[in-house]
């Protein structure tokens, strides 16, 4: 379980103090898929970076299974929007990086890598460098790399935002497929309402700067979910409610 208790993040920019997050609190259960939804610049990525232990908090505390998060650790894997894969490593070296760091044998690493290569459907690209792959393929590898290290939590920072909508659609299905087989806690940051509803068990809506919690929605659409969910009446109702919550933002 992850508990976020009253966190605030402020930093200085051109001599001015900017508050990115203010008094944010929430908890995420094991195996839960949580989406943090908000407009760009609302501090949702900052929240994710804080949970990852990448940037320091101004106030508050983040706990992972009761332990205070003080820095990045292998319990919490990440997928970013860009600069994800190490460009100097091949696809198989990228996926095998986590297992290598925790000292797995070469044989075991090979098994893990070929396992994930199959899941993400990149057979034949094991020896390719990231720059030789399309954006979508890169993100597949990034997913595989994060899962291959078997973290307890997966932190995803708009991982599909730079993909075309068709590719993003397939990627979401791939993510749900892997997640349904290897359940973990996922905290997924996005600005796309459809994406949030399709993926999440629960959606948190953040207001724009400074980021504060504005609403919380449980998504009870049955799984496995496909893009067809997006046209069911239940979905439309949910989207309306969440939209109005986002809109009060723009108006207010």
């Amino acid at each position: 379980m992850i508990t976020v208790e009253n966190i605030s993040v402020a930093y200085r920019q051109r001599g001015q103090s900017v508050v990115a997050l203010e008094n944010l609190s929430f908890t995420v259960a094991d195996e839960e898929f949580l989406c943090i939804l908000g407009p760009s610049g609302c501090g949702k990525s900052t929240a994710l970076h804080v949970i990852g232990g990448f940037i320091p908090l101004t106030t508050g505390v983040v706990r992972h299974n009761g332990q205070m998060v003080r820095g990045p650790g292998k319990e919490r894997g990440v997928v970013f929007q860009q600069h994800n894969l190490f460009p100097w490593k091949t696809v198989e070296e990228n996926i095998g990086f986590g297992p290598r760091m925790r000292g797995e044998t070469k044989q075991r690493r090979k098994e893990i890598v070929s396992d994930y290569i199959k899941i993400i459907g990149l057979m034949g690209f094991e020896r390719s460098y990231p720059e030789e792959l399309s954006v979508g393929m890169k993100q597949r590898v990034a997913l595989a790399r994060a899962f291959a290290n078997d973290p307890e939590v997966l932190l995803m920072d708009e991982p599909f935002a730079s993909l075309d909508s068709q590719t993003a659609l397939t990627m979401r299905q791939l993510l749900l497929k892997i997640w349904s087989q290897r359940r973990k806690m996922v905290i997924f940051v996005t600005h796309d309402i459809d994406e949030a509803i399709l993926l999440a068990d629960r959606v948190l809506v953040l207001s724009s700067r400074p980021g504060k919690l504005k609403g919380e929605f449980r998504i009870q659409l049955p799984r496995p979910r496909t893009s067809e969910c997006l046209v069911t009446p239940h979905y439309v109702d949910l989207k309306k409610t969440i939209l109005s919550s986002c809109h009060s933002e723009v108006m207010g």
Partner: protein
Amino acid sequence: MINESFKRRLFWIGQSKIVRGTSAFVAVIVLWEFLSSLRLYNTLLFPGPRRIAMAFSDMFVSGEWFGDLRDSGVRYSLGFVLGSVIGVGLGTLTGRIPVLRDTLGVLLNYMRSTPSVALIPLVIVWFGIGEEAKVFVVAWGVTFPVWVNTHSGIAEVEKEYVWAARSLGAEGSDLYWEVYLPRAVPFVIAGTRIAIATGFFSLAAAEMAGAFGGVAFRIFHSHQMFRTDKMMVGILTIGALGVLCDRLFVSLTGWLLPWWRGESQLDK
């Protein structure tokens, strides 16, 4: 009348990079030989290609040319390796550790502005005109371009790479060997390529200031003997060496950087 296929062959020969690249050399040599054979000027001061070729063949046969090449090669290689290692080491320190960037970095920037040539008289006082002096001067010329570039490479590593690596369990020295250093390699290579040239510059100056052999020493020595033909052999040799090292290095980069697709830092 010239037939079609011959014309086409001529066209493709004209497209060849090697043909195009050597054509300027050939043209200059032919023109040069022609002008010097007219004896419009004192060819003792500026000998033609034929005289230079003859001097070269004498030096080649006597072994003098090879001896000089070996002397210069050993000095240059030692200085180059030493300077590169120091440059990468310093760049790692100042690029990675803010305190060192603000202290050592400033000092190095000052030292960098001192041309290696300016140090030669002092270096001779320290080491005499032995090999150490030359290696030192070459290393000086090589260290700073490598340092500056390694520094920027290490300092500009994208934070996402470091975060991702730490989230995958990399810590301490793993981060350096797996992330910082490989990410900085394109920069290191760009710096090293500049250093190839600055190293040659330093080598030439150091050998002229006093030596017993070496390509640049030969230029200076032939000057005292008033052997302009041998001077020209030396000048052409050192130029060829520079080009050769640079080409060799560029072809090496493909092997060092199989992943690199950028162009800005590595124009070929």
